[in-house]
């Protein structure tokens, strides 16, 4: 019995080894060689130089901004979604934009945010006058938030949907204000969904790259941009891998810090 059960494990184990363990080991291996193929720890010492530390700081800062704003928008949205009549329709409308290719969306935003774009026309009409929107920190965070919002809404929505409404009625009956109810009942019970959403946004946001060029005009440089440069332009795979290793470690730490407890929110409702 146990033997045949082990046999069933083989494809999964093979998959894990081939596509999860092997790539990570390869990246770690490549990170120990310089451009000339010599064994060295230089890539890591280089990572500790001000340039890369500043870049790491930037990446974390922008990823944090993106996550916080996504959460600020997504939580109320998810909350109202659970109250609406046609839940699945509204949910679908939120998910549909994520079917469109990321690059296309980025290009659309270049048009909208440009000097003669729609956003500036509106500002002009409002009497504020033309502002530079494209290639600023604002546009970068805005577009990233727009792209990541579905990933935040879904887990939060699932958590809110699972919440038993009688708990809220009970809280109100016992005299808690709506805000107190939210703080003491709703939010703690949906915390797992929030955590899952934050992971789903923060981790990919750390390694964003295309948008840094298209929307931020390379005025924002993240670790993802640097990895792309090192692999495609410089062909300094060692340095690119070293950055990737640091990112993997950072992500693992985040997962461990936020991943405790049960994962009810990820399973969603049946």
């Amino acid at each position: 019995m146990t033997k045949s059960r082990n046999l069933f494990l083989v494809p999964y184990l093979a998959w894990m080894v081939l596509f999860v363990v092997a790539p990570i080991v390869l990246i770690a291996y490549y990170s120990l060689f310089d451009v000339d193929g010599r064994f060295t720890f230089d890539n890591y010492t280089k990572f500790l130089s001000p340039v890369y530390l500043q870049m790491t700081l930037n990446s974390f800062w922008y990823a944090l901004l993106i996550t916080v704003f996504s959460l600020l928008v997504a939580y109320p949205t998810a909350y109202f979604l659970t109250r609406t009549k046609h839940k699945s329709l509204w949910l679908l409308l939120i998910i549909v934009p994520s079917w469109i290719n990321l690059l296309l969306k980025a290009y659309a935003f270049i048009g909208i945010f440009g000097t003669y774009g729609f956003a500036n026309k509106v500002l002009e009409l409002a009497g504020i006058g033309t502002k530079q929107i494209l290639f600023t920190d604002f546009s970068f965070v805005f577009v990233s938030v727009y792209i990541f919002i579905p990933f935040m809404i879904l887990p939060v929505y699932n958590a809110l949907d699972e919440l038993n409404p009688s708990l809220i009625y009970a809280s109100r009956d016992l005299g808690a204000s709506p805000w107190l109810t939210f703080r003491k009942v709703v939010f703690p019970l949906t915390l797992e969904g929030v955590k899952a959403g934050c992971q789903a946004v923060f981790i990919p946001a750390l390694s964003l790259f295309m948008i840094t060029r298209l929307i931020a005009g390379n005025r924002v440089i993240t670790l993802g941009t640097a990895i792309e440069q090192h692999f495609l332009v410089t062909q300094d795979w060692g340095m690119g891998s070293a950055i990737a290793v640091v990112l993997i470690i950072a992500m693992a730490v985040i997962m461990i810090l936020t991943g405790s407890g049960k994962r009810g929110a990820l399973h969603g409702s049946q």
Partner: protein
Amino acid sequence: MKQLVNLFVSVLVLSAVLLFATYRLNASEGYSGGNTLTIFNWGDYIDPDLIAEFEEQTGITVIYQTFDSNEAMMTKIEQGGTTFDISVPSDYAISKMKEDRLLLPIDHAKLPNLKHIDPRFMNLSFDPDNAYSIPYFWGTVGVVYNRELVGDHEFTSWNELWDPALHNDILLVDGAREVMGMGLNSLGYSLNDKNEEHLQEAKRKLNELTPNVKAIVGDEIKMLLANEEAAAGVVWSGDAAEMMWENENLDYVVPEEGSNVWFDNMVIPTTAKNIEGAHEFINFMLDPEIAARNTEYVGYSTPNAAALALLPEDISGDERFYPAPELTDKLEVYDNLGKRMLSHYNELFLEFKMHRK
């Protein structure tokens, strides 16, 4: 569950139909084998009529594929797998492909039309005696500017870009060699300089440009400048020509301190199967009349002297794209600096990008 099965079944059926359709289409156009030639070129970099003409003349069926960067092209050829009979890399890429043994030698005896190429474009540092590559187009790096937006600047000097009046009004192309080269040239150094002090000086100078730089972008630069998103930009001449077709206010100039001159040459990669056909194609493209038509379509500068003579005066006499010898003498080709130096250039460029206003 049933819906899931339906979904998978419909995807499979759709794929099968598409596969069959592709197969039929290929078969009906004669792609199924025999005498074919696969060309791997930059996007929108040939007059499509010429391909049809070549097919008619030689009976060879052409399969045409495109790439958008030298690096992507080299990676694909390095991987093998696909048969590419012709590719069109730029100078430094040719030098690198040669080093990596990705190119086949070209037999000049099979190219009677080679005599039409201006000797200025032959025997260049990246490929002595043109053993592996034949000139296709060439161009420069310079400044595109919008006459309506830049005041009385004419950008005869790189240093005009540093004018505080151009605050937040300049776009740069996202290339380490181009931007570092501009920094070095503006100081009067060579754009292939390997002297550490000069490089650091160039980077400091570039940092001072930061307040004027609106963005550092890729191919989007064409669209952005044509839409008057910025007053000036540092670009390749070919892109400049394309923008100028779209927006009449734009003009192009190569600053007098010198700049980069680049060459895209035709090569036969080691993945080639139809080497005979590849030579026929190269010879066909070298024909003066064909090259002239191709130049009119593509808009870049032709290295073909006989073709240039056939072109109307407003193209061949345009000093912006066919600069006078006094200027071309000051232009430099990017040397293959070696991986270590190239990586250092990129490092400095990255530091420049990181420098905040």
